[in-house]
């Protein structure tokens, strides 16, 4: 399909998320994405969840720590933050997470908040 003209494309914000778990925990990007969707669906409802449109773009995890970039629609950052705070388990492993920062581009998000 022909791509949208610039003024009709959605605007995004990118949240840099730091992850932590017990050292023996291991889970994949897909599992984390599922947990984020469930958390958003449960807290914000279907409508709010669709508005926020949370998607995990980048993900790395190992040895009990990790980081991810989560895309959210501009103007929905606070509901997204709330939904992320409600992610307490991924794949049966308890996780702690916090939003390190918010950027307008993926590149800025990586450069500022992710480990090189």
């Amino acid at each position, binding site marked *: 399909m022909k791509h949208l003209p610039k003024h009709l494309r959605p605007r995004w914000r990118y949240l840099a998320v730091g992850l*932590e*778990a*017990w050292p023996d925990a291991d889970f994949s990007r897909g599992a984390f994405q599922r947990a984020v969707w*469930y958390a958003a669906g*449960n*807290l*914000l409802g279907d409508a709010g969840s669709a508005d926020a449109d949370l998607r995990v773009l980048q993900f790395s995890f190992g040895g009990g720590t990790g980081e991810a970039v989560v895309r959210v629609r501009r103007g929905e950052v*606070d*509901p997204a*933050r*709330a*939904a*992320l*705070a*409600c992610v*307490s388990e991924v794949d049966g492993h*308890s*996780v*702690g997470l*916090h*939003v390190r920062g918010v950027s307008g581009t993926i590149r800025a998000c990586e450069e500022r908040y992710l480990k090189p």
Partner: protein
Amino acid sequence: MRLSTVLGGRGRASDTDTAIPKRPGRHPSRMYEAVHAHPDGDSTAARFAATAAHLGYEGVVVRAQEATPDHAAVREASGIDVVDAVEVVASDPERASGAVGGLRPDHTLLCVRGGTDRLNRFAVENDRIDVLTQPMTDGGDVNHVLANRAAENGVRIEFDFGPVLRTTGGKRVQALRNLRKLRELVADADAPYVVSANAESHLELRAPRELLAVGDAVGFDPDTVRVGLREWSVLAERNRHRQSESFIGPGVERGRHDG
């Protein structure tokens, strides 16, 4: 609130709070979180303090049942304030009453876990208790009479965000319903309150901004959550001051006098 008269009335008294590492003068803006450290929870007090410092808190309240951390060492290692608190978990007011009398002189903060109507009533009617925690869990209830008594006695009622963050489905709906009821009662009675995520491991801690966002999503004004997190530090500072040697009674202090 009588608290403000106590706090407002003192001038250079903050020099007694030398235990607080950062900016002793800025007490109203500091957000603290209250946690359950090992062996009550899964993580040690040191782990909690390190994570809380990383998340932007300026202090942790270690509300111990069995835990006996070395507060000074943890404070030193983490760089944030660590408050010596105790949480009385008893099945009935008679037992709680004995524990309150015994523990009050030895700890900065004293919390009583609610959860039954009798325990809730006991806690809000006793001005030696600082915080009534989890008043709505396990079928406990609060009404306007208790909220008014809490306001009179200066007993903080806890808004427990734990179930909102960590449960789903019916349990969470129930917790949200209870939180809403409690919020309306507390607002009506103008009762003091605290906010906590009730973390049992350092993974359950959430940053202040996250808690504000969650509060916003479930109907709490962001300022309410902020005040609730700060209230822990206000309480800690008030009690440290009261337990210091220069304090005799509200408005009466021993100090230097000229002549």
